[in-house]
């Protein structure tokens, strides 16, 4: 897998700082699980957090705080010392962070039709942003939409083209309100993406707009 489209520095910084809502964090964590380069970059931003903690200044703790915590931890068993091996992926398209949300496999996802051939499944994240799986049939367009805010789309299966730019498995497209784009699934097969948006999508066509309240788009 060659990943060409990565997470930006600003978004990795926001992720390291714990600034992103759950839906965006899910896209970042899923991409990092597939992308060594972004894993290394995310580690560097965590290290920046370490330096900030180190220089944050101190606030005094009560004198007996150490003893309290020692009493607490010694009454509890230490977590198992076996190395934490990642469990085998049941579905190679679904890295661990996403697996927690869809229960193992893309095959078990309960899709709902968007009326245009495309299907979606909303994932159970906090409500300040929405994460959804999108399935676009081979050769078809994603419903025409612009954005009121940030949108991140990660390819899990197949590929889509946005203009002349191709996004394959592991690639992330980052779009904001200035982007009017119309991704088209490649002709060879259905394209499945994980997408996060921090406000409602604006669909340009009449029918998808009418459908919006029903589909929570």
């Amino acid at each position, binding site marked *: 897998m060659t990943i060409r489209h990565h997470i930006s520095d600003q978004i990795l910084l926001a992720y390291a700082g714990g600034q*992103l809502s759950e839906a965006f964090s899910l896209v970042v964590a899923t991409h990092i699980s597939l992308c060594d380069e972004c894993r290394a970059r995310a580690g560097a931003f965590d290290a920046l957090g370490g330096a900030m903690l180190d220089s*944050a200044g101190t606030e005094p703790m009560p004198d007996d705080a150490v003893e309290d915590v020692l009493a607490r931890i010694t009454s509890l068993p230490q977590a198992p010392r076996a190395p934490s091996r990642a469990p085998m992926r049941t579905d190679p398209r679904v890295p661990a962070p996403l697996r927690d949300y869809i229960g193992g496999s893309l095959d078990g996802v309960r899709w709902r039709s968007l009326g245009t051939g495309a299907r979606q499944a909303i994932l159970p994240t906090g409500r300040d942003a929405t994460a959804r799986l999108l399935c676009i049939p081979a050769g078809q367009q994603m419903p025409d939409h612009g954005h009121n805010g940030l949108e991140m789309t990660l390819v899990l299966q197949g590929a889509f083209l946005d203009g002349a730019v191709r996004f394959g498995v592991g690639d992330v497209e980052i779009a904001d309100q200035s982007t009017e784009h119309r991704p088209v699934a490649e002709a060879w097969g259905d394209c499945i993406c994980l997408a996060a948006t921090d406000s409602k999508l604006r669909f340009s066509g009449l029918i998808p707009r009418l459908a919006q309240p029903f589909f929570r788009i």
Partner: protein
Amino acid sequence: MLRDADAGTNVDGNSGAAAYVAGCDGEFVFGKGQGRVADGNGTDWGALLLRVRDGQDKVAFAALFRHFAPRVKGFLMKSGASAQLAEECAQDVMATLWQKAHLFDPARASVATWVFTIARNRRIDALRKARRPEPEDLPWGPEPEPDQAEVYEAQQETTRLGDAIARLPEKQRVLIERAFWGEMSHSEIASETGLPLGTIKSRIRLAMERLRQQMDEGEDRT
């Protein structure tokens, strides 16, 4: 090598340990073997955490607590927590450090970085009542015999990054402060401006080399 040195001090164990509790404000270095790292205060936090990890050493834990708990409390209060909540969370963070010490990999992160990630996650949980999905773990845990040069690099990076942040232009420094204890605006998050920080770039290069190397070793084993 780190382990040998630790084993050596473990023999006369508690007397040596008591000495660095007295000095836990950190004006001395214990163990002077190669690969030892001390921060600006002269204390080798990585070695102390390894003593917690490998020997459930309470004295080492107390020294870590006295250094890091007030910093975690300060960090959480800067993020908007009340003194009482920050104090409770700082205690939770240090308890987590004890319980998850076996996951600490001194070749991957400094103690400050590791404590930061625990504190950040506790903050998201306590202040925002939200979840932060984490990347899939790599299929290998901490190496039993980490490369000492890598340990040295990783343990030193907090000091080096701190110096680099202090030298940044005001605008970038403020952005980093907002990312870690303020709030980034939506347009800042959506912006594509990079953070041209040389120290970060070299840190990323090292981490990439390490990932590739471990990937190769993993393939050799299978």
